[in-house]
């Protein structure tokens, strides 16, 4: 277990700056997920922690020891790559023991550690196979085994589940989380999949264009996104956004079509301001009376819930209905936003205006 402190870290490739001063504090044993869209710098940041990329400015410290100039092998970290990166000519056991062998650990200890890791990951029957003879999930497990045998201070995962099919991904997600709970090792995990981030993390760091947008627990990010980017990135289906101008007298939001949409109470001083109103799909309800007139455009029943894409006041919205409902495309219905669940963002800079 170890803490990782990232202070004002920057990364430039020539004149192009890709990470613009990032500060993250990772506590002992914490599972931190770096999440963001492609090209946001999350993998670069992870590679800088690993020592595979030079740090242009700032410091990275593992257990209060600055590691900027340490070789990867001297940082006491282990990394699991997206595409496994197993040594193809070596067996599973040799793949797992390679690092210990290089560290000149005696054979009996190596054997013991490999067996222990194989037992944790259910790899015992596969120890003598080559990577080519394994399925995707088994290969990813070997990659994790290779990390476990080293008993590192920090595990680094670089999108480890991206190459697996949906079902296996869910299974491996639980496996990695279970592994973390069992070993208690600090984990830094990179993904672009916000569901992975939400389900696995103790703390999520949302990155965008080389900057941190927000750091917080999964539910903090979900319930209190600090800006429109985080609000739109976290959650699936994504939050609905309606741009408009807040009317005086708290009557609602005047949208592009000229209609005024009731959004619940908001501070009087915001009247006349251009804002973006955000509402999560599960906070849009189909109501019998009152509400906003809407027309169902696409209906997607998933079994446990129904996603309904509606058009209301000239805006396209997605509602998630968690009860059995009979709606067909083209049906007219009335919708209402759940009180106290809306989010207001400044139309110009996208920052959160008020915690509603």
């Amino acid at each position: 277990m170890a803490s990782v402190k990232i202070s004002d870290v920057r990364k430039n490739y020539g004149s192009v700056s890709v990470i613009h001063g990032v500060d993250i504090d990772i506590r002992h044993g914490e599972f931190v997920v770096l999440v963001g869209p492609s090209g946001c710098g999350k993998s670069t940041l992870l590679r800088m922690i690993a020592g595979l990329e030079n740090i242009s400015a700032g410091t990275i410290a593992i257990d209060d020891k600055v590691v900027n100039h340490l070789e990867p092998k001297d940082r006491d970290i282990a990394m699991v790559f997206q595409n496994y990166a197993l040594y193809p000519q070596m067996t599973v056991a040799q793949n797992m023991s390679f690092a210990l062998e290089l560290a000149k650990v005696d054979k009996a200890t190596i054997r013991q550690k490999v067996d222990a890791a194989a037992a944790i990951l259910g790899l015992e029957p596969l120890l003598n196979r080559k990577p080519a003879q394994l399925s995707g999930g088994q290969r990813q497990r070997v990659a994790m085994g290779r990390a476990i045998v080293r008993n590192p201070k920090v595990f680094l995962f670089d999108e480890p589940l991206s190459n697996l099919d949906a079902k296996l991904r869910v299974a491996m997600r639980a496996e990695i989380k279970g592994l973390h709970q069992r070993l208690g090792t600090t984990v830094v995990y990179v993904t672009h999949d916000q569901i992975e981030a939400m389900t696995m993390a103790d703390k999520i760091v949302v990155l965008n264009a080389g900057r941190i947008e927000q750091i917080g627990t999964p539910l903090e990010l979900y319930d209190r996104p600090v800006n429109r980017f985080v609000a739109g990135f976290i959650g699936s289906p994504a939050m609905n956004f309606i741009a408009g101008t807040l009317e005086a007298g708290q009557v609602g939001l005047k949208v592009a079509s000229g209609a005024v949409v009731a959004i619940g109470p908001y501070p009087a001083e915001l009247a006349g301001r251009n804002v973006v109103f955000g509402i999560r799909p599960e906070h849009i309800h189909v109501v019998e009376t009152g509400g906003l007139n809407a027309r169902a455009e696409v209906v997607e029943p998933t079994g446990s819930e129904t996603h309904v894409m509606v058009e209301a006041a000239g805006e396209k919205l997605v509602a998630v209905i968690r009860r059995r409902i009979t709606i067909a495309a083209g049906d007219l219905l009335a919708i209402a936003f759940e009180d106290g669940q809306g989010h207001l963002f400044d139309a110009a800079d996208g920052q959160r205006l008020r915690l509603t």
Partner: protein
Amino acid sequence: MTFTTLPSPQIDAGRPPRDWVLVGLWLSLVIVAVIWIAPFVFIVFTSLKSTTQVMTTSAFSPPLEPQFSNYASAWARGRFDTTFVNSAIITAIKVPLGLFISAMAAYALAKIPMRFGKLILLLILFGTMIPFQVMLAPIFTMVNGFGLIDTYPGVILPYLAFGIPYQVFILHGFFRAIPHELSEAARIDGASHFTTFRRVFLPVSLPVLAALFILDFVATWNEFAMALVLLQDREMWTLPLGLSAFQGQFSRDYGQLNAAIVMTVLPASIVYLIFQRYFVSGLMSGSVKG
């Protein structure tokens, strides 16, 4: 309501229909094989004939009374006990050493970030562009200057200089195609560059190394022009130089000449047969998922 019976598709339980494209490909393969094998058949048959038989029978008619003595005579006349050993020593040192140096250079250029790396690669590639005939005189002067004429290093070093550039070129391309995660994983595991090269890159490069080994072995084994210039003492001659002993102004012993050619070509063919089994793709499979 009317029902119509759909004609059931004809199922031919017999042989699948003949694929004429495949037949054409096979035919052309057979023709190419015949064209390539013909000279070899000619050489083997001739090597077993006496001079009279060579003159009186068709080139492709089998020897009716095989003259195996041609081989013994050719061995003695071509001084094969000397030339064979010289060729073997030169090839045995040059080919593995050249491949090892090329592989190390290619790894460094492909995987270690360095200033002027591209320039160095270009300089090495420039070496592949110079025809060695142009360089024969300068090489002779240089080797002579070092006092290495009629020595093994005197011929091995120029061979290395001309062999390495194209090997670096091919291996560089191959190493670059190996996913960088593989070397990064090794780096995190604590491997030095040399360990990564030896334990990870060399094993996955076996097919390309085998191909280069064969090509280089054959080229070195058969090399004539440079050996002719650099090896003047008959005691240092290589096999191809030994063969020239059969082509004297007045000699017409085609049987012996062809026996000598068979003996010269045989080791290269054996090396090819041994290493061609490494020409298998898929050594990288399972390593990474693309």
